């Protein structure tokens, strides 16, 4: 009798755990700033409103999203939902939410502008939505500029103007470097486009590096050699590994730092009152004054065994009021058309510099070039970015000449295209 009771108890426990498992939705999430905390809070609220669904938020490093998630997805595994940046490259792994969400038209109307960025070419799939729209842009250490008596270059200033002004500040204030750009193909693409570069060939595949790209890269390497641009961040890794120069800016070691809008919260939190800083948009080149758009998307993974619950979670987080709250609390630019059109975002920050910076980035979206807008949805973007970062990194480390780097970049990209076509 005792054994039978024990077995019955075990069976019931097993059933209970199975049913709990059926309602689990696992989200793989990474954070640049405070969004992990905000998301944790929102997940808590979601579960209170939807007691049948247990959302598990796995906070991971960005490198896990970049390097391990693609492997999991290729093997047909992975979380139910993920926050990713390689949204086009991995689009074949995303779940089509169109038949699952409450109101597909709401999704089309509000997230339609970026829908192509995250779905396979030629489909009308709803894969998810952008948790933030980002735009690359520069930050100046205003205190250093003021102390050096160098005026901060104006909105139409060129990359050369910024290099010259930052160099003066560097020499006057004895900081290690005048400027730094994150070790990232996405970041360095912005000035390349401003110099007239075009990555996309007439057949939709990568074109060889053109004059615009070569001109800026030659200038960039020259600036690194004369100490204007920090080469530390670019030589600090091999291959296409991402490295941000944010810490150097936060530590007051840089006059000008080129990164993007996602750094606003990070800078506001970590710099505090140590010095004054301003966002300055993207410097100009001969062809444009563009930044590179991008961002992170929350996407549903098609290997989920829990499609209905995943759609409920996605619908909840895509609500206008939730997107607005998320953006206001994280200081991210929203990717929801309704929220953008209505305006009136009240960014939750006591830091006036952060609020001003966000407005600068909102303004900068107006000067984003057509070429820049195409790249987030182009299949080969990451391939081009990786080749540029790898070879320019080697050039700055003294391993090759810039002309050899150009040849290698073209051949690396051609080889990748060939590999992908096998």
């Amino acid at each position, binding site marked *: 009798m005792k054994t039978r009771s024990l077995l019955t108890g075990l069976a019931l426990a097993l059933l209970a755990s199975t049913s709990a498992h059926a309602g689990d939705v696992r989200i793989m999430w990474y954070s640049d700033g405070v969004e992990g905390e905000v998301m944790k809070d929102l997940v808590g609220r979601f579960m209170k409103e939807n007691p049948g669904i247990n959302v598990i938020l796995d906070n991971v490093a960005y490198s896990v999203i*970049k*390097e*391990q998630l*693609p*492997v999991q997805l*290729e*093997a047909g595994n992975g979380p139910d939902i993920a926050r990713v940046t390689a949204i086009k*490259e991995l689009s074949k792994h995303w779940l089509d939410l169109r038949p699952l969400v409450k109101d597909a038209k709401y999704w089309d109307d509000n997230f339609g502008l970026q829908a192509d960025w995250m779905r396979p070419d030629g489909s009308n799939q709803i894969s998810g939505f952008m948790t933030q729209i980002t735009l690359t842009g520069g930050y100046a250490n205003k205190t250093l500029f003021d102390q050096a008596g160098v005026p901060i270059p104006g909105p139409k200033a060129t990359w050369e103007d910024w290099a010259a002004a930052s160099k003066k500040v560097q020499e006057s204030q004895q900081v*290690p470097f005048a400027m730094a750009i994150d070790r990232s193909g996405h970041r360095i693409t912005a000035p390349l486009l401003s110099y007239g570069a075009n990555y996309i060939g007439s057949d939709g595949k990568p074109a060889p590096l053109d004059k615009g790209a070569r001109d800026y890269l030659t200038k960039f390497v020259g600036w690194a050699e004369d100490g204007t641009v920090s*080469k*530390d961040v670019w*030589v*600090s*890794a*091999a*291959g*296409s*590994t991402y*490295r941000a120069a944010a810490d150097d800016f936060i*530590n007051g*070691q840089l006059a000008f730092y080129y990164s993007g809008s996602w750094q606003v919260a990070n800078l506001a939190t970590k710099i505090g009152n140590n010095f004054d800083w301003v966002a300055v948009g993207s410097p100009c080149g001969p062809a444009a004054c563009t930044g590179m758009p991008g961002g992170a998307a929350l996407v549903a993974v098609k290997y989920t065994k829990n499609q209905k619950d995943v759609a409920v979670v996605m619908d909840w987080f895509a609500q206008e009021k939730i997107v607005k709250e998320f953006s206001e609390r994280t200081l991210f630019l929203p990717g929801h058309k309704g929220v953008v059109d209505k305006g009136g975002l009240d960014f939750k920050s006591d830091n006036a510099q952060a609020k001003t910076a966000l407005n600068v980035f909102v303004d900068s979206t107006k000067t984003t070039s057509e070429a820049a807008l195409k790249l987030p949805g182009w299949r080969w973007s*990451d*391939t081009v*970015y*990786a080749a540029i970062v790898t070879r320019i*990194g*080697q050039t*700055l*480390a*003294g*391993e*090759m000449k810039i002309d*050899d780097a150009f040849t*290698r970049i073209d051949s690396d990209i051609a080889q*990748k295209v060939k*590999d*992908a076509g*096998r």
Partner: protein
Amino acid sequence: MTTPSLSSLIMAPINAVMRIIDAPLRRLQKATGIGGMAAFFLAPNMLIFGIFVLLPLVINFVYSMTGGTAFFLSERDFIGGAQYSRLFECQNYLDPMSCQEDAFWTAVGNTFWFVVLQVSLMILTALITALILNRELAARSFWRAVFFFPVLLSPVVVGLIWKWILQRQGLLNFGLYQFGMDPYTWLTDRDWTFAATIGVSIWAHMGFYALIILAGLQAIPKDLYEAAEMDGTRPARVFWRITLPLLAPNLLVVVVLALIKSVQVFDEIYVLTGGGPGTSTLFLTQYIYETGFASALRNPGLAAAASILMGTVLVVLTLIQLGIGKRGENKGKR
């Protein structure tokens, strides 16, 4: 009535099982002979070895014969030895830039120099450390623990600790600054960074090898040293004629293990330098990892081919060393 002892309680179920399997095993031995019984008892181990070592090796080899970016074998095209040809396509193997896969040959060159320098320096320091720790020292156990402690650290922790020490605004530069010296960018200078990877790797692993050598030193009969002392033999001669020959088996184990570990170097160096500056600390395992998993449009076939080549080199090196060891043993017997 006597109470059963704890050991008899533990042995009871084992004995019961033995009684059950005794008869079938006897029949099996009768049928297969002693050789068959050896195979029977080895089978479970071989099964695990086969599933977790041999099978992945075979699958890896199959991958190396396929192309494309897909992970599933069914979605990959068979391309024969094209990945190997690509790795070997080179005008001058000593100039990686003349090779199609320049990163691979750079990694081969870096790994070669790393192995030569790291293994030789590490064995030397491990030997010296073990000789010192084998002497009558005050707080000997404490010192043994101190030298062994880094072995217990996770490689990521080792990498991070040394990064904090060596980076531009790190502890070392802070110290130099306090002494009025100019700070230096240790991790952006190619030569210093390479030296740092060797130093950090020795610091992290030396304790383990020192422990093996120490065990060997303690196994050498004391009377040999006493006899040498009575004969008035000089300490250097004692070392070369007694200590080193009797340590040879332990040193061989240390060399084999250190060499394999050194060729496979990855984690702490990846955290410390990321393979930079440029590709000056890019080692083979990182090349394989990045090619197969971390780069845009991964190439698992090329990564598999590189890992097969690396595995082959390791097997050859191990066989050479074991051969040398065997020859030494045979000489000793004669």
